[in-house]
Every structure is written in C-alpha cells, then in structure tokens.
C-alpha cells in the first residue's frame, strides 16, 4: 500500500500505481483536467508512464466559472 495526497486529501492505494490508473480509480478518465505531481506538471502524454510513490502530493484541476 502507498499513501498519497490528492487535492489535499490523504488516500491509500495498492502499488504499483501511475497517474492514469489513479485518474481511472477516481472516475476522472476522459475529463478535461491537468495534473501536478509534487509541484511539477505531468503532461497528459506522460500520465500512463508516471509512477506514483508513497508520500506523493498531487493536484488535479479543472476549469470552472470565474472572473
């Protein structure tokens, strides 16, 4: 098991885990979003090849209404 933080919430998953698989588990696949891992952008093209490790911090963002 690894523990990662997604949008400020601690979550536990079975290893191995990558960004694509995580998005799948969160029901976010196919959504227009962007991912940051430990402060660095993970381009969409690298979601499937970016492994996640214990202690990783992710931000998953979308566009919302704003001024």
């Amino acid at each position: 098991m690894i523990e990662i933080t997604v949008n400020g919430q601690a979550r536990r998953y079975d290893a191995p885990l990558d960004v694509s698989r995580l998005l799948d588990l969160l029901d976010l696949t196919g959504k227009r979003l962007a991912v940051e891992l430990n402060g660095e952008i993970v381009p969409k093209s690298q979601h499937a090849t970016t492994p996640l490790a214990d202690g990783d911090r992710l931000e998953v963002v979308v566009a919302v209404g704003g001024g």
Partner: protein
Amino acid sequence: MDQLVIAGKTYSSRLLVGTGKYKDFEQTRLAIEASGAEIVTVAIRRTNIGQDPNQPSLLDAVPPSKYTYLPNTAGCYTADDAIRTLRLARELLDGHDLVKLEVLGDPQSLYPNVVETIKAAEILVKDGFKVMVYTSDDPIVAKQLEDIGCVAVMPLASLIGSGMGILNPWNLQIIIDRLKVPVVVDAGVGTASDAAIAMELGCDAVLMNTAIAGAQNPVLMAGAMKKAVEAGREAFLAGRMAKKMYQASPSSPTGGMIGS
C-alpha cells in the same frame, strides 16, 4: 474594420466577460451569448473527487471551440501560486498560452499586489505566456508591466465586484496615453454607462463579470453591456465635442425669428 488586437490575434468584440457567479450553466451560456464576447475568463480549481462524472460542466456551456478561454489566477496572493496555476492552465488547455494574471493583496479589498504581480509577470513572459495583467490604476506600474512584455494591461476601474464604476478616470487616461499595448478596464464596472465611459476614455476593451452576473436580469444586462461598449467605442472614434462652460451655442438658427 475596427478590431481589437491582442497578442497578434484580432477580435471583433471589445467586451471580455467572466464566467463566474451565474445561477447555473444555462444562465452562463445565455448571458455570454448576449454579451457578444469572444474572450471569456475561467478559473482553475481542484476537481471535486467523487462527483458524478456526467454532471454538466462549464466546458459544455461555454465550449472552448467557440470562445477564447482566458484562464485567470483569481484567489492567488503570491507570484508562485499564480505561476503554478497558469502552468496547470496551459496543460489543461493543451498549450493555450493567453492568460490573465492577477495577484491579490488582501481578501477584503481584493486590491492587486503589484510587487508580486510584476514578479510573476517577468517569469511568465520568459516562460512563453502571453500575459494580460490585472493591476492597479498606477500609470508607472502599468508602464512597467508593458515593458516586461505583457500583451495587455488591465487596470481596475474600482475594486473587484464593487460595481463602483470608474473612480479615477485621470489615471486611466494617463495609462491609455502612455501605453502601446491594449488597455483593458478590468473590475469595478457596475452598469452600462460605466462601460461606455471606459471606452470613451479610449480603453481598448472592458472586462467584467459581476456587473452582468450580479444584475437582476443578467442576460438583459449582458446585451446592455455589449451596446454600451460599442457605443463608447464609436463615441471615442468619433471624437466628442469640446466641453464649454457658459458658451451657449444654440442648435437652431438665431435669425428668422417671428416678429423680428
């Protein structure tokens, strides 16, 4: 054809609108359509994990295929947070690099922190972003932001969401006179006449959100703003008559009066 040019791209509408604070996505869609805006601002926020993935989203109501998205950094109080947000926005929007930078100073007034704004602008411009920057109506800061390479400078008319209108037309006039890049009045417009005054001063465009979303009838107000921006622009281009105190000049002939 009188068009607005930002970062080499031309737009026919000089009204830019926000997409926040509407009752629902349908009202957002209708109001933005009525405004005639081509550029719409959006915010970047954490996605709600566990939300039904089939729920309607902003992207359905305001499709990025139809509108130019202008991701903002609303809610950011440091240069670092603003830069992070816009890098996420660029990734989210597949490399789209036209952005609205705003770094706020305090949550009560939402007045911009120009020191952090300048810091962020320098880094973002170097990083290849086309930065439209929200700032105070300080002409020196506005010029500095232009010199850094921002593609548009967007001084406030009054505080964000206040609807107080144009509080310092003299500062805006100095900014308009001195800058070469488009000057967009951003924040503070409350009603149609405020937008018209901004355009009559010679602003290149007006950006607003609350003035439309906060109206009793947002869709009707969106149409009013469209007309006000167009009317103000035409009045500016036409060149207004000089203001004259005590120099009465009747519009009708002075001769030929009956009984003379």
